[in-house]
């Protein structure tokens, strides 16, 4: 039983890959991003200041002025990423904090004194200060590239602590401390949550899809591959798992999609503390075209059933809420049946089902995980005849709780596959479908006509525009003519007399 994760195809070699084999791609990207953004942060002010200093240094060669400036320059030169948080402080710090700079970790001790020396010599020789800048940035870049993804963040935390010992204000670090620690917790939670989700999915699969389990007894092909030893589950993202089964009478395939809570994502985990949600599993059974009669049927808890009836298109068109019939055992009070006709509802809710799951007593015990079921031959999408079951997953230790719910799936496949409507009901359903088909056809025609009309209108517009252009030209010509005529009219004032 293996999970084939689509995400593990891309493997980047990072030193952590030995410890954490799966998510190194994520880690690598994440580390790169954080390093990059921190670099940007500290380069921007650093890049701005030397620029102005360069101007100043050229103009006044005053030594007294040059001294503090040189210090300022050194501190504003971009330090290695690991020391990132020290720079914002230095702008406010007193000018004689050099020893404290030297106290910081050994990685950046070397470049700094060097740059200081360079600068002092340069100051007297009047050489522009570009050299030390490039050197220090190169050193910083080298330090950044050498540092590992996670150790870098850890280092920064250590540095935060070491900085905290220095008598600088700690308040200005709060944002960094909070964010870095949040990111660390996020990373830890990513791996633990991922593992948790995988364990839950595997627990489900080992309960229901291994040898001699319910799906093995019902389907000849299990898993997403073509061979027998192919992986059972297909992982999509970190919280969605798919299980496929095929090779059974009446249906062409079954796809179970487990949508688990996004435990790997700390933010949505926090959000789920406020708005709780469940781990859900959805079974989609694709029925063969010839083995499902015209049935539209749904069942869910009362509130949900009403919203389903309003929102799902096929239920909205064909089905209505069905009241419990008199003199017959019916589903538990919490449940509401939505169906095309009463006949379908009574035929599909058999005594066996009532006994096992949906009856009053059984539902309390076994129906906790039931969310909804929706059997319809008019589903939207590519395969029309489909049975959809939605259940909530229990925890991985109590997987057996949903055994009866899972057993509903093959039971209903057989029930629907054998079910034939009575002639009376069939004529009704056929009429309804014909009506809907006609409506659809009409809608299509309307849409087509609309499209045609739009095209015509566009053509007309084009023609009119062309005409307008033409008419504009005509107007111009007319005006020109008028003018010339007026000119002519004006002309004759000077009458010429012919010499007789």
């Amino acid at each position: 039983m293996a999970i084939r994760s689509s995400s593990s195809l891309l493997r980047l070699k990072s030193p952590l890959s030995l410890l954490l084999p799966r998510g190194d791609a994520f880690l690598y990207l994440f580390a790169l991003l954080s390093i990059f953004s921190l670099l940007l942060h500290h380069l921007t002010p650093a890049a701005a200041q030397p620029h102005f200093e360069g101007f100043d240094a050229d103009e006044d060669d005053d030594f007294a002025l040059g001294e503090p400036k040189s210090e300022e320059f050194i501190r504003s030169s971009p330090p290695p990423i690991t020391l990132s948080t020290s720079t914002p402080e230095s702008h406010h710090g007193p000018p004689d904090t050099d020893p404290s700079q030297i106290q910081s970790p050994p990685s950046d001790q070397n470049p700094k004194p060097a740059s200081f020396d360079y600068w002092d010599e340069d100051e007297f020789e009047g050489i522009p200060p570009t050299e030390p800048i490039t050197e220090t940035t190169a050193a910083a870049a080298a330090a950044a590239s050498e540092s590992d993804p996670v150790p870098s963040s850890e280092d920064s935390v250590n540095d935060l602590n070491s900085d905290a010992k220095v008598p600088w204000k700690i308040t200005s670090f709060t944002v960094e401390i909070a964010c870095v620690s949040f990111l660390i917790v996020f990373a830890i939670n990513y791996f633990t949550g991922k593992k948790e989700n995988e364990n839950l999915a595997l627990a489900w699969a080992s309960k229901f899809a291994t040898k001699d389990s319910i799906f093995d007894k019902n389907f000849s092909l299990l898993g997403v591959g073509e061979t027998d030893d192919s992986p059972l589950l297909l992982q999509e993202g970190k919280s969605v798992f798919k299980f496929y089964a095929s090779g059974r009478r009446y249906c062409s395939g079954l796809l179970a999609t487990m949508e688990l809570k996004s435990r790997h994502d700390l933010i949505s985990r926090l959000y789920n503390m406020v708005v709780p949600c469940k781990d859900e599993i959805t079974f989609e059974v694709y029925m063969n075209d010839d083995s499902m009669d015209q049935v539209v049927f749904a069942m869910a808890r009362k509130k949900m059933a009403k919203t389903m009836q309003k929102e799902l298109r096929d239920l909205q068109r064909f089905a209505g809420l069905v009241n419990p019939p008199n003199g017959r055992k019916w589903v538990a009070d919490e449940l509401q049946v939505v169906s095309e006709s009463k006949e379908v509802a009574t035929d599909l809710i058999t005594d066996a089902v009532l006994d096992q799951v949906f009856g009053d007593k059984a539902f309390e015990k076994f129906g906790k995980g039931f969310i909804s079921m929706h059997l319809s031959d008019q589903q939207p999408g590519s395969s029309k005849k489909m049975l959809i079951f939605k259940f909530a997953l229990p925890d991985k230790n109590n997987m057996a709780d949903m055994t009866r719910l899972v057993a509903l799936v093959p039971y209903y496949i057989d029930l629907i596959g054998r079910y034939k409507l009575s002639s009376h009901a069939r004529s009704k359903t056929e009429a309804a479908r014909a009506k809907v088909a006609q409506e659809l056809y009409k809608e299509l025609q309307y849409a087509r006509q609309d499209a045609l009309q739009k095209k015509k209108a566009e053509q007309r517009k084009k023609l009119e525009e062309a005409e307008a252009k033409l008419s504009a030209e005509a107007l111009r010509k007319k005006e020109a003519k008028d003018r010339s005529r007026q000119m002519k009219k004006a002309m004759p004032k000077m009458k010429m007399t012919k010499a007789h």
Partner: protein
Amino acid sequence: MASQSNDPRLPSAARPYKAPVIAPQDLPIDYSGFIAVIFGVFGAMFRYKLCSWLAIIFCAQSLANMRNIENDLKQISMAMM
């Protein structure tokens, strides 16, 4: 349930799983990535540190929520260009 009288399995009808193909533009919207971009822009525009940090955090979230790396990398490379 007891109604399975004989073996319902039908090996001849077995069809292997075909993953539905999803075009890159039909992928669900990556809200956290979107938020990250917005925070990033704000952080860069106003030099506001907290915004940039939030951008990093949401970026991490969107990375964590990647569905399938190939498609998303395609998108990212497109965005880079």
